[in-house]
């Protein structure tokens, strides 16, 4: 008989549209982070480090990268005879076929998967946060409080509380009320989107609310359980936890990794983050290279200068190029003499020799100022930037761009240059 005490369900289907072109061809959990990792590595590594060996990953938006990355789960030791990692895409049913319409709806459509493992508890995770957390400690809390639902919460500055789902608790940690993105928050405990449910409670709630359109945990399932009088508890987490949902916060979280002793320390022995390493060789730094206050992934070759940057694996940085305050993902090729300031360059992009990225004054982006801001230059996956062009700030470049796309060899601050169909 198959029996697992707790299984995890990882919601990885979201597009993460506020990451702009970074998620044009991949779901947000597949976006690179910290040089060699992808965002989903953090919850997956947390699972195995917490002793959870059965993880269902719910995918929907652009899953190819994610599927390839997860494979059969070897990097996380999640290749198991029973359990392990299972990718769960939406599927056709004899009636009522639909996409995953909401977080809880996605879980509802996979009741059979969970049933197989006969769990006592189900852990619901989302694939878009950077943190290290021992879910076993949370489970102990859940058990010792006889909770039916435990929600991980995090104290946030009260002025930011209105961006989150806020929990109001009694002195024992029991949730008495909650508010979704309140105007005037009455507490600073923000929900982290991590839940432990008693399996019976979860199953009953999902089935009774199944007809709800766009069934969501925060909006429907938690209120339903609360109204029914289930004991709901808040588990307060005080470690590092970062939402990397916007380009600005994504850039910030990457830059925090290069501090002398980073708040989020990847170099700790006892809570390793695992990832699929496609590239093994060491990195090479040439005689005239300079690399300072940066992290660099495997197999990269640096002939130029790199300051305050996060460089992925298999990157080539040409002679006399200067890369500053930037994120350069796996397999990027930066030509000779390129100047690169505060840029995010996605996987496999090629920056032609002598190009200048991130010059001049800031100007609001013409198409999506809420996405492309903070003075960043964002270059999409497998994009080519021709040699010698000069690119301003708050710009985005995507696709195989040619010299004629840059009038006078320039792309002014705030411009969007996306070439579809490539």
């Amino acid at each position, binding site marked *: 008989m198959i029996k697992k005490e707790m299984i995890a369900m990882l919601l990885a289907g979201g597009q993460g549209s506020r990451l702009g072109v970074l998620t044009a061809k991949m779901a947000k959990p597949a976006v690179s982070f*910290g040089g060699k990792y992808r965002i989903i590595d953090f919850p997956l590594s947390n699972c195995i480090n917490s002793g959870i060996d059965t993880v269902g990953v719910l995918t929907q938006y652009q899953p190819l990268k994610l599927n390839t990355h997860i494979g059969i789960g070897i990097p996380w030791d999640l290749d198991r005879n029973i359990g392990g990692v299972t990718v769960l895409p939406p599927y056709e049913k004899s009636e009522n076929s639909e996409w995953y319409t909401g977080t809880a709806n996605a879980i509802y459509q996979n009741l059979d998967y969970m049933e197989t493992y006969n769990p006592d508890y189900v852990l619901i995770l989302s694939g878009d946060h950077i943190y290290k957390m021992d879910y076993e400690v949370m489970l102990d809390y859940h058990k010792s409080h006889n909770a039916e639902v435990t929600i991980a919460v995090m104290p946030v500055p009260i002025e930011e509380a209105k961006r989150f789902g806020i929990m109001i608790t009694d002195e024992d940690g029991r949730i008495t009320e909650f508010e979704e993105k309140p105007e005037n928050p009455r507490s600073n405990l923000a929900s982290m989107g991590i839940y432990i449910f008693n399996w019976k409670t979860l199953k009953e709630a999902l089935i009774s609310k199944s007809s709800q359109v766009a069934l969501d945990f925060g909006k429907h399932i938690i209120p339903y359980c609360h109204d029914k009088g289930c004991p709901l508890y808040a588990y307060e987490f005080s470690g590092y936890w970062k939402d990397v949902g916007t380009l600005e916060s994504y850039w910030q979280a990457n830059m925090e990794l290069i501090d002398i002793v980073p708040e989020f320390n*990847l170099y700790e022995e006892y809570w390793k983050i695992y*990832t699929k*390493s496609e590239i*093994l060789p060491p*990195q*090479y*730094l040439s005689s005239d290279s300079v690399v300072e206050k940066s992290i*660099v992934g*495997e197999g990269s070759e640096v002939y130029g200068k790199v300051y305050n940057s996060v460089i992925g694996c298999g990157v080539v940085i040409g002679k006399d190029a200067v890369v500053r305050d930037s994120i350069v993902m796996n397999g990027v090729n930066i030509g000779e003499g390129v100047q690169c300031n505060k840029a995010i360059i996605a996987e496999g992009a090629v920056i032609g020799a002598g190009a200048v990225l991130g010059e001049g004054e800031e100007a609001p982006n013409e198409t999506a100022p809420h996405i492309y801001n903070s003075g960043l230059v964002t270059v999409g996956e497998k994009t080519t930037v021709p040699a010698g062009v000069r690119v301003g700030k708050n710009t985005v470049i995507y696709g195989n761009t040619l010299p004629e796309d840059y009038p006078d060899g320039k792309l002014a601050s705030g411009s969007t240059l996306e070439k579809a169909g490539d």
Partner: protein
Amino acid sequence: MRAIGIILAGGNSHRMKELVSKRAVPAMPIAGSYRSIDFVLSNMSNSHIQKVGVLTQYNAQSLNEHLSSSKWWDFGRKQGGLFVFTPAVTAENNFWYRGTADAIYQNLSFLKSSHEPYVVVASADCIYKLDFNKVLEYHIDKKADITVVCKDADDIKDIDRFGTIKMDENYRITEFEEKPIVAKASTISCGIYIIRRRALIEMVEKSASEDRYDFVRDILIRFKDIKKIYGYKIKTYWRNIASVDDYFSTNMDFLKPEIRNYFFREYPDIYSKVDDLPPAKYNVGAQVRNSLVASGTIINGTVEDSVIFRDTYIGNNCYIKNSIVLNDVYIGDNTHIENCIVESHDTIRANSYHKGETGIKIVVEESDRYLL
């Protein structure tokens, strides 16, 4: 491929000095991220050999750890896979492996129970890339009994530690000398052989019945006139690492762009066990020039013309030149290291000075490490 692989990973060599007190030669770290045996394992995997036996004996713990899972070289298979054979006491036998042929003899059931017609025998202390299919094609084409992969030794030092061979115009081997005092030929054996499986079983059994246990001396040399032994010459990069100088220079070869490209960027890849280390980190004050740096390393000081292996910490104001720093080394502040091989897991106190004056110095210093 219609062959099985046998890797001779016995692994002691007095020429490696202190370096083999921790591990066998096949487990020696190479080029920042690899171990010596990765090259032959990857070659076999890339040649689509499905079943590989590794014969180990000397100080095999580190090697066994490295081989604890066969999936990194894609040998995690239901059919075939990776087999590690250490000497074992049995009803018939209570000896260590008395030689390479004896190692094969003691595990003859592995050969007998296989059905592939050919065997690729290769040692685990050589750094090269080779498609064994090409050698096998040649072997079949020549109707050879044994094919020996060999190389002109123009760029190889101390040729007297190899087997040297002379061939006729058809590449049939006419002379074979093992470790000659004065080498008469300038072509050396690379320690890679292809033999028909049944012929190997027969020869190994015959040698064992005569108490002969060495593959080269008692099989190749002894049978060279009655068996057709051919040489297959390679011109590509090949190095044996089983001496301190060769180990050092082979690692340093990877600082050359053409060698790096050949091994790191050209098809096919070399595989190794994945260590899950974070990216290398360069703090303010780090100056690294013409060096290879592996993951998990944190650098604060200066590094020049060196190979830094995984998970190493280099303190402030250090100066490291023309050296190899093996895995998991902690180097305290203000340390000077020049012309050295720093042994793995070393902890070097701040303000130390190590310099190889006449040759390569091996630094073994295991001070207490205070965790940060």
